[in-house]
């Protein structure tokens, strides 16, 4: 465990020595960003809409006290999704989607000697392959999280108003009630940290694959597991430090 953490640190360091030219890395980063964005936007949209809807329904189920205004439901949906559910659940979903594809892709490149082919050309394969993925994830994740926040609030709105639990006016009042802009900043900080954790851990797992197709599968699985654990620990640490 400690050993592989040390190896991970060395791996991260190797991304920054003998880098390729900025022009090449920039092009690769744009490609990776498009890939990550397009591949995950659909799942992120679905998950976050439903999370908002479910949160709304459950909160309203728990709040049937006549003395509490119905707009509180909107308030609670906003607090829960922006602060925790949108960034964290989105990241966990992305750990599955992006993490496994990063690890699988790099693992396959490793066992089919494509990584060796890069190295023989005198290219720093780790930097060439991994750095753009990490940077792309850091750029794209916050956008996905913003989308997730928006859609989960929309999901809550639809679930709340269509089921007649509260009126649109009440929901909107609740959403606006006591809004703290820092919460959004905090969520975006989380998304950047999670993006780094997912992309770097998955790259690490994939890059050090050896053997055959079986090991590539194992690398994908362990990439997702390790990323999810790292997200949860990171979530706790960030909440502790920043809130």
């Amino acid at each position: 465990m400690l050993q592989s953490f040390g190896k991970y640190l060395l791996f991260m360091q190797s991304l920054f020595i003998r880098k390729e030219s900025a022009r090449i890395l920039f092009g690769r980063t744009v490609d990776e960003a498009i890939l990550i964005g397009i591949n995950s936007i659909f799942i992120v949209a679905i998950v976050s809409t439903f999370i908002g809807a479910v949160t709304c329904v459950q909160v309203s189920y728990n709040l049937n006290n006549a003395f509490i205004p119905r707009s509180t439901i909107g308030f609670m949906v906003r607090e829960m999704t922006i602060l925790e559910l949108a960034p964290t659940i989105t990241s966990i979903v992305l750990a599955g989607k992006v993490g496994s594809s990063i690890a699988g892709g790099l693992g396959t490149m490793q066992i089919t000697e494509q990584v060796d082919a890069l190295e023989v050309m005198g290219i720093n394969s780790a930097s060439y392959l991994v750095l753009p993925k990490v940077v792309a994830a850091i750029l794209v994740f916050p956008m996905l999280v913003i989308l997730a926040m928006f859609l989960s609030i929309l999901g809550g709105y639809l679930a709340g108003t269509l089921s007649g639990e509260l009126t649109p006016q009440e929901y909107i009042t609740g959403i606006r009630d006591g809004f703290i802009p820092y919460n959004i900043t905090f969520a975006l900080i989380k998304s950047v940290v999670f993006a780094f954790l997912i992309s770097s851990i998955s790259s690490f797992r994939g890059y050090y694959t050896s053997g055959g197709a079986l090991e590539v599968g194992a690398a994908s699985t362990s990439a997702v597991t390790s990323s999810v654990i790292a997200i949860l620990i990171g979530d706790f640490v960030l909440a502790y430090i920043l809130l």
Partner: protein
Amino acid sequence: MIEIHNIHKAFNGKKVLDGVSGVFETGKTNLLLGASGTGKSVLLKCIVGLIKPDLGSVTFDGTYFTNNKLDIRQEIRRKIGMLFQGSALFDSMTVEQNVEFPLKMLTDMTKEERKERVDFCLKRVGLEGANKKMPSEISGGMKKRVGIARAIAPHCTYLFCDEPNSGLDPQTALKIDELIKEITEEYNITTIIVTHDMNSVIEIGDKIFFLYEGKKLWEGTRDDIMDTDIKELNDFIFANRLMRDAKKVEEEEREEEEERRYNGQLASQGKEKAPSEESVETEKEPHPDNPEGPAATTQTGNDKV
């Protein structure tokens, strides 16, 4: 000229290379010959630095490589073209992009120059028109040829080919061999080819190094190879010469066997209506209608018990 000296390599305590030395001359096709699993690919990877040897050194035209500074190794590597045993094409790129890749990374050619060079290299390996195909859409032999095109595209000084013609038909194999030899002589580069094909040896082997269980047992020219008195090498040559005939015989045998099995299946299909439970029940007395079939299964069943 590439010199290797006393290369040792072991994996998890298992010796793969055991003190290999040699000189690979410029402008010549140097062959590493040996049976499967003798460490040819490992030696090649030690030379280009993909595997770090436990002991020993590699020198490229007088420049020490193995444990030298990163920049110097990088410098040398940019002059290396390599074809991998499994082709190692980048599977997210088209054939054309694969060949263009080293040009993009290692040279400052313009787009038009690159395009021209890519077309030239693809033509050279007989793959005009495959430009836009993905690696997953072309055959194994075509992948090999794309791999060669990618290796020679940036005008390398050192060319390494790991079994360039395995898995190709004899005609294409010959073409590839000749191509490599031509390129070697034309550009006066140092070429090392891993092979276990005696045809290649006869056709293009300027200098041959015979590896056996991690050791270099013999080196010499193709003219000398037929009259050595090294038993392992003679066995290897003999086996190779016989290989094709043996393969043919084996294939015929396999086909015959399959045909026999197939016919057997056809014959037994008629009797298939006798399920296995029945054969257990009728253990003592064979079925009167069909005394042969179930009785046979019963007997084997009894044997097991």
